């Protein structure tokens, strides 16, 4: 299921609660969830994505790998949508361990962390490279 041959220090993984029914998310599904287009998993259950701190390297790397955009571009995107109310940006937590903590407590949450921060508390849905 995993392809370790591609792993590197810069690799970021998208993770979810171990009890989550979803085995994996495609890159497109991850984009749609993070950019506010989808608010549910493919099976229809609500998904709550979480971001890392605005100035964090992980966040910068994540968006760069995912949609090839800078953090400020992503901020501009959300700013544009500020008043329409259709989509809201993901909740922000401090760092990778905070992400793991929240996911452990909530089945609906997904988040991203550096591969090196990965623990057994969460399950990998996909790699973002």
């Amino acid at each position, binding site marked *: 299921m995993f392809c370790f041959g591609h792993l590197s220090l810069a690799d970021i993984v998208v993770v979810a609660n171990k009890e989550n029914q979803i085995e994996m998310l495609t890159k*497109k599904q991850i*984009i749609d969830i993070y*950019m*506010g287009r989808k608010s549910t998993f493919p099976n229809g259950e609500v998904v709550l994505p979480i971001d890392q701190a605005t100035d964090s390297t992980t966040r910068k790397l994540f968006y760069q790998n995912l949609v090839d*955009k800078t953090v400020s571009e992503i901020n501009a995107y959300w700013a*544009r*949508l500020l008043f*329409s109310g*259709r*989509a809201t940006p993901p909740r922000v937590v401090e760092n990778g361990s905070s992400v793991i903590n929240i996911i452990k407590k909530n089945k609906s949450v997904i988040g991203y962390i550096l591969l090196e921060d990965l623990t057994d508390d969460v399950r990998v849905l996909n790699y973002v490279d």
Partner: protein
Amino acid sequence: MLIKFFDRIATRLIINLILVAALIATMSSYIFFERTYKAELKQNLASIEQLIQAVAHTAAIATYLEDIVLAKEVVQGIASNNLVKAVELRTNHKLIANSGEMNQLDEQNLIHFQLKSPFIKTEKVGELIVNINDELIQSYAENVALEHVVLITIHSLVLILVIMFLLKYQLVDVIKMLAGKLHTITPGSGQRIALPTEHIHDEIGLLVADINQLLTSVEITLSSERALRNEVEELERRFRGIFEQTSGGIALINHQGYLKVHNPSFEKIVGPDRMKRLGADQKESLFSVVGTDALTLQKAVTQALVETNPISVDLKISDNDVINWLHCTITKMIDDAESPILEIVIQDVSDRRNREHSFKIQAESDPLTGLYNRRSGREKIQQQLDASEQLDIEYALLMIDLDNFKPINDQYGLKAGDVVLTTLAKRFMKHVRSDDIVIRWGGDEILICIKQKNHGLDITSITQKLTDIIRQPITLDDDQTVTVGASIGHAIFPLNGFELDLLIQRADEAMYQVKSHAKANPTANDLQA
């Protein structure tokens, strides 16, 4: 010299100019409209493209998220431009925002802009459709074209005015002046058109020179015509004089003999009565007024019609027992099959004819008795014989010698003998037919030639009749009466011969036989006499 307004050169020129200007204005306006329209359309399309490019990202986000509010914002932003008639923003599945009435059929005025996902460039998330306000562009182009028409019209009007002005002063006035001058010039008066100094070297100058040259040649022609006419008039006067004064009667007639023209001499020769008939209302033909010789004249006219040479004929005209002879020469003048004209020249030749006639009579007759003399009588008989040789005709030649003539001469004088001879001559002439010929052959010898057709000649009865005539008593001047007898011998053509001399000889011999027989038998002679 007044020329109708629409016939004037300047008017026609101006009308043509206006027509051409109108045509050019119409055509160029159309071209301007098309060009302006296309250029405007292109420019407006470009500015709308720019507008779309400006909002494309937002529109992509709106469709990506199906964000109605954002979509409406985008649509309104585009629709606020007055070049845009309608806008639609669609995701892949549905319409999420629109503005205005979109005409999907107006394909050429629709701009379809494909919206890509903001995050995945290969994914199409929706479409922005803009309907351009073509009416606006069109009306703009129309305004531009109209402006152009107005400009061209003003331009043309100014040009036409200038052309009119130039035409009037440089051409029309000059032509008017030339036409007016030419109109007043009478050919032959020596007048010429003065050459306008400013036009010496141009077409007007050439025209004036040519007109003057033409006037000169017309003058020359006119004067030579005039001289010729005078000559012809003089000639005509002379010919008329000849025609009027000639002694010969000249007239022109048609083939039916009706008089066309005649001269006074003709009138004089033909006489007033006949002229009245020829010229009166119930116009008579010349044929019908000439009398007995009408057929001769008619024949001559017919002959003249078919021949080129003049035909001459003598006509006998009798008025109250006066016989006039007219010598007519008929010539065909106009050879027209429908109505040919003939010239008839007549001369009164009565005097000559009468003189000739009396000479002839004198030469042919015996002065005492008026009978044919021997020579002419012989000729007459010869003529008859010559004419009759082929015919079934007999001639009896009777030689008469008077008996007892010499004693009367001796007893009563020579005068009495003359009376006997003239009396007998009168008796013979009274009894013979016109064809018969009575000749005083000698002193008391008479030769009578009697013509008899169809073998009906009874010579015995003729001889007897002649003897009876001779034996009638003859009254002399002094109321004395005498009686003469005659010995008659005869010869018959062709029974007794064909030659006249022979026949005369035979008759003579027969007569002498009778005479000698009578002398030998006086009783018998008495009986016969």
